[in-house]
């Protein structure tokens, strides 16, 4: 299976035997214990698991905020598992659009300036930056609020600004960490619909969540438990535990 997916042109993410070991107070904590899977371009995948399952660690590794202890991580054809800090910063800037549970907008900057930020670090000239940031805000229907600061926006609006910020640099994938966790259900629904639109438009989405209902709406879900992949299949079946067709994946294939 890995052979087949490895040769596929459109494989965007390919992780093989990923492990991540922390040392906490002299004790070894194995947060990831040999994880392998692939994500093709244009897929919408949920990574689901209880707290402590290793999903946050996996998200940090997938987001190039952290490096694995062993194993390989190919992102868009590049082996990012052994890159140094500076190169990872560039990868984060170019390949990944982050969407956080707590939005993580800079409080003193306007919505527009927040959206421009990834382009600043890419060295895009100011005028082009502004145009592209406006276009991104337009995709989330927030151009009318672009000169407001985060504290003048509602939670849903803040998350839309964050999504615009993730979209503006046209990354290979959007990486969302509990994107509806700080929103009421109506606003959460609004954000999920936005994800559906983005998925239809061809964006690759990786969504990390502990909510089965949210994962169930994704075409595919991967369930983690104790640092291992315990299920990988259609979102509904993996998230809600229905159906017998879920591939149980343990260790390597």
């Amino acid at each position, binding site marked *: 299976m890995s052979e087949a997916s490895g040769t596929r042109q459109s494989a965007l993410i390919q992780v093989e035997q990923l492990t991540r070991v922390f040392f906490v107070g002299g004790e070894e904590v194995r947060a990831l214990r040999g994880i392998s899977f692939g994500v093709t371009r244009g897929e919408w995948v949920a990574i689901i698991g209880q707290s402590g399952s290793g999903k946050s660690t996996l998200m*940090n590794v997938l*987001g190039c*905020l*952290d490096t694995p202890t062993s194993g390989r991580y190919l992102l868009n054809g590049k082996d990012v598992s052994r890159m140094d*800090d*500076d190169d990872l*910063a*560039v990868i*984060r*800037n*170019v390949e990944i659009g*982050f969407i*956080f549970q707590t939005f*993580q*907008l*800079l409080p*003193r900057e306007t919505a527009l300036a927040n959206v421009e*930020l*990834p382009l*600043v*670090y*890419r*060295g895009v000239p100011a005028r082009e930056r502004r145009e592209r940031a406006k276009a991104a805000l337009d995709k989330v229907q927030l151009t009318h609020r672009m000169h407001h600061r985060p504290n003048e926006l509602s939670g849903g609006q803040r998350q839309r600004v964050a999504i615009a*910020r993730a979209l503006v*640099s046209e990354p290979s994938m959007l990486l969302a960490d509990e994107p509806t966790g700080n929103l009421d259900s109506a606003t959460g629904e609004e954000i999920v619909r936005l994800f559906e639109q983005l998925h239809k438009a061809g964006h690759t989405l990786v969504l990390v969540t502990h909510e089965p209902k949210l994962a169930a709406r994704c075409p595919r879900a991967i369930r983690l438990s104790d640092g291992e992949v315990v299920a990988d299949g259609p979102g509904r079946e993996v998230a809600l535990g229905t159906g017998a067709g879920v591939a149980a994946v343990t260790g390597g294939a």
Partner: protein
Amino acid sequence: MSFRQGFRVDVLEGGRIALFSLRANRMRTVLTTLGIGIGVATLLAIVGIIQGLNTSFHNQLATLGANTLYVSKFPWVFRGDWWLFRNRKNFTLDQVARIRAQAPFISAMSPAVQRVSDVARGDAQVSSVRITGVLEEYLAVSGYEVASGRFLTTSDDEVTRPVAVLGAEVASSLFPGISPLGQTVRVDGRPFQVVGTLAKKGKVVEENLDLVVLVPFRTFYASFGKGRPMQIAIAVEDAGRVKQYEDQLVGIVRRVRGTPADQPDDFSINKPDTLAQTYEQLTRALYGVAVGVGLITLLVGGIGIMNIMLVSVRERTREIGVRRALGARRRTIVLQFLMEAASVSAVGGLLGTVVGLGTAKVISLITPLAADVRPETVFSGVAFAAVVGLLFGIWPAARAANLDPVEALRYE
């Protein structure tokens, strides 16, 4: 993204964020600035005043003449036993003539002998005037200029004529509004006829050169006794070769005075340089202490900056995490905080410069101290403050850059 372009982005963005954050925390910025400002102000005021002292001292010394040597039995500056020098034999006029004859490099030469007396004209009187007995060439050696009448001549000396040339201040005090020429002044009751006056010359190290009355050398001896030691002022032809002439002069004077070969010199050759060196030794120590105090103040200011920057890093931990997640490299973060620290310091430096210069100026107005502030001092004040900011910003900036992005994003 090329490295150069990356660096440009880092600097531009770093500078923008720095300004932004300075504006956002005005009160804190002002207080931090104050610390550095006081340090720079102290340093500049002290340096300005000392430079002023130096300049005025050197200007005064210049009036003594760079090509002039002063030979006498006393050195101008000495440590140890005064009576050792006092016991040296006095120079005589005969020795003066023989030195002159043997030293072709001397362009002008005159012995000078002095006492301090009151000078009177009728009821008017000037106190503490230096009555100086000199020869004709004294005019050339001393740098005085004749303002009216004539200078003393060799014939005045030979016949011990009771004539006098008045210093500018003596003339203006005793003869306000009228010409002193042909008039009589009394020194300790003895009458002298005024034949000339000198142009104003100013002060050298608190010594008023215009409070002087010049009389012929032998007249001085005849009037006030021969016991006083003379100082011989010698102008040489070429100021650039003073050192060489000085060495030759030592040999000539030893021969003339018959100093035995196994004995040290029984006279001293003095130069304005000697005074300058002594002065510099004195002020260098003062300078060192003063600059040390200023530096300590700056150090305290720098620690203030470091403290504030550490607070700033802590406050903005999440911001740092976000920036790192969005693609900021470590050095971008480092630059951001370094520029923030440096700009706070530079603003402080500028403020301190203004205050320091003002202080120096005020001190020079209300005290006799002269302040002299040079452009390079101002520049170095600001630059120095910025460097202090950079140095004390390094640690906080490094801490910011070394934050783990994952931890930073999670920071509450």
